[in-house]
């Protein structure tokens, strides 16, 4: 058959993480410790799971409305108002999606015309670039700088804007760097976006996991709500990754279009998950607080431990990753990760999986117990010392 495949899809590179995942899986070695996971190590709090089970017992096994259960949309709006002081109309400006990932996809598909440019700050989550391409847009990669602790600055943004720029992706708190934007950073960015008439897709899936100042959503800044597609969800805050549930808030004119794609491609987010999520938003605050305290301790432990190894590691204030630099060891991220896996059986993700500018860095997840982290970092320290010795870097 001629032209069996769609060129646009074929042109997309498989995720760099996938490659590493296959390698680790092939080893199938119980000795391997992985610090490569991008999901919480906690179980979903029992009261939330129980609510899901109860909904099944009650036979709530039907589709919900396309935009999601009314109770859930109301709970989302209450939450956003009380937590981030931003008001959305649950009838017209909110929809429940299959994870934040779906929202990224349909948000881009709803707004992009062929050739429209999307500014994607990297290192960042793996799906913005392919989703942009699949939606017919043109990704413009903006390389965040270590010297700015991987925050997006006004100058960097201005330099990336062209007359074709339509959307800025704002992935903070950031996976993989753990970087967060402060209110003053957001104000600078908002000013540029308003002046240059740019839409913002703000992926705030880690918003509950910040360890310094509380998260601020760019949608809450004056003049921004009307140009922001806000994406959030339940995976990270409530340890609900497998429930596949997220949500997005956007001006009605955009949400209406997103809803059409969702309606035809997905129908509705999983019903059981939606019932559980209502309980998460209403009664889950204490659980989030406990997890945050725990993550914060591990975060301090990792920053301390990597610095003790003599590696440069800026202090991240969000998500559950640290992003130490291995540049001084004269190896690429890929080489380091491979060698570490072979010699010490510790799996970490090379920074390059999140964009070319992740070269020289590693993503280390702290969604692991302190004991596991200790065990793994002991091995990493031994490995780093060995490499230094071999290369005469002492």
């Amino acid at each position: 058959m001629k032209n069996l495949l769609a060129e646009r899809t074929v042109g997309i590179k498989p995720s760099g993480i996938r490659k590493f995942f296959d390698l680790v899986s092939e080893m199938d070695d119980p000795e391997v410790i992985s610090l490569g996971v991008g999901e919480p190590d906690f179980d979903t709090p029992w009261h939330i799971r129980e609510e899901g089970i109860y909904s099944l017992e009650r036979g709530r096994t039907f589709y919900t409305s396309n935009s999601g259960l009314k109770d859930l949309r109301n709970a989302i709006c209450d939450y956003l108002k009380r937590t981030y002081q931003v008001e959305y109309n649950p009838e017209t400006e909110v929809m429940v999606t299959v994870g934040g990932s779906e929202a990224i996809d349909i948000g881009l598909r709803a707004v992009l015309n062929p050739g429209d440019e999307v500014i994607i700050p990297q290192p960042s989550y793996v799906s913005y670039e392919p989703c942009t391409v699949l939606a017919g847009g043109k990704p413009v990669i903006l390389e965040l700088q270590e010297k700015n602790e991987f925050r997006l600055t006004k100058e960097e943004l201005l330099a990336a804007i062209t007359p074709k720029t339509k959307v800025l992706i704002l992935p903070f708190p950031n996976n993989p760097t753990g970087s967060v934007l402060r209110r003053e950073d957001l104000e600078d960015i908002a000013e540029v976006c308003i002046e240059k008439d740019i839409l913002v897709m703000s992926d705030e899936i880690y918003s509950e996991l910040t360890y310094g100042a509380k998260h601020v959503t760019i949608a809450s800044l004056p003049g921004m709500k009307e140009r922001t597609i806000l994406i959030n969800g339940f995976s990270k805050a409530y340890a609900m990754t497998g429930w596949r549930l997220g949500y997005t808030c956007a001006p009605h004119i955009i949400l209406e279009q997103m809803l059409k794609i969702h309606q035809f491609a997905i129908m509705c987010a999983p019903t059981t998950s939606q019932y559980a999520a209502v309980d998460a938003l209403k009664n889950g605050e204490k659980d989030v607080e406990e997890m945050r305290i725990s993550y914060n301790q591990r975060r301090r432990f990792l920053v301390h431990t990597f610095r003790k190894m003599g590696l440069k590691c800026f202090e991240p204030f969000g998500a559950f990753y640290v992003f130490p630099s291995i540049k001084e060891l004269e190896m690429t991220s890929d080489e380091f990760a491979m060698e570490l896996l072979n010699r010490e059986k510790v799996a970490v993700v090379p920074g390059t999986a999140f964009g070319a500018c992740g070269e020289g860095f590693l993503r280390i997840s702290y969604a692991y117990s302190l004991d596991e982290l200790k065990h793994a970092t002991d091995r990493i320290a031994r490995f780093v010392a060995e490499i230094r010795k071999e290369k005469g870097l002492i």
Partner: protein
Amino acid sequence: MSELKEKILAIMEKNSKVSVADLAVLLGDTEDNVSRAIYEMEQDKIICGYHTLINWNKVNNEKVIAMIEVRVTPQRGQGFDRIAERIYNFSEVNSVYLISGGFDLMVMLEGKTLQEVAMFVSDKLSPLDSVLSTATHFVLKKYKEHGTIFVSQSPRERMLITP
């Protein structure tokens, strides 16, 4: 109480083995402050000991654990404290709680055999003047103690690498 002390307690309650150096890193404070705070809490009897949580089910040497509901007559001027003291002074007794509801004191104790526990109740506890009645319950299985689940759980099925 200081915020630091509360944070130290939250960690030590789950892990009394944690070192001062580790606590300082985890809480982002200095070792001096942490060790001073621990010392003060020991002096103030806020920290009363560093025990180990043991699942005795997994050890051959068998133990019998009993929970005994005790109804007593409170004494003038001293309420329940005096009779509680007479009970908690027995070294066999592990814990004594004053309880609201249908009885007054919950006494927990360990013995080597059922017989030993029964003898304690009939010889020592019941004859006390203020004790009106007792009801002894033997523990058959411990599922969870101090927030730790004792029964074995299936291993995690998290993938090794995810974005």
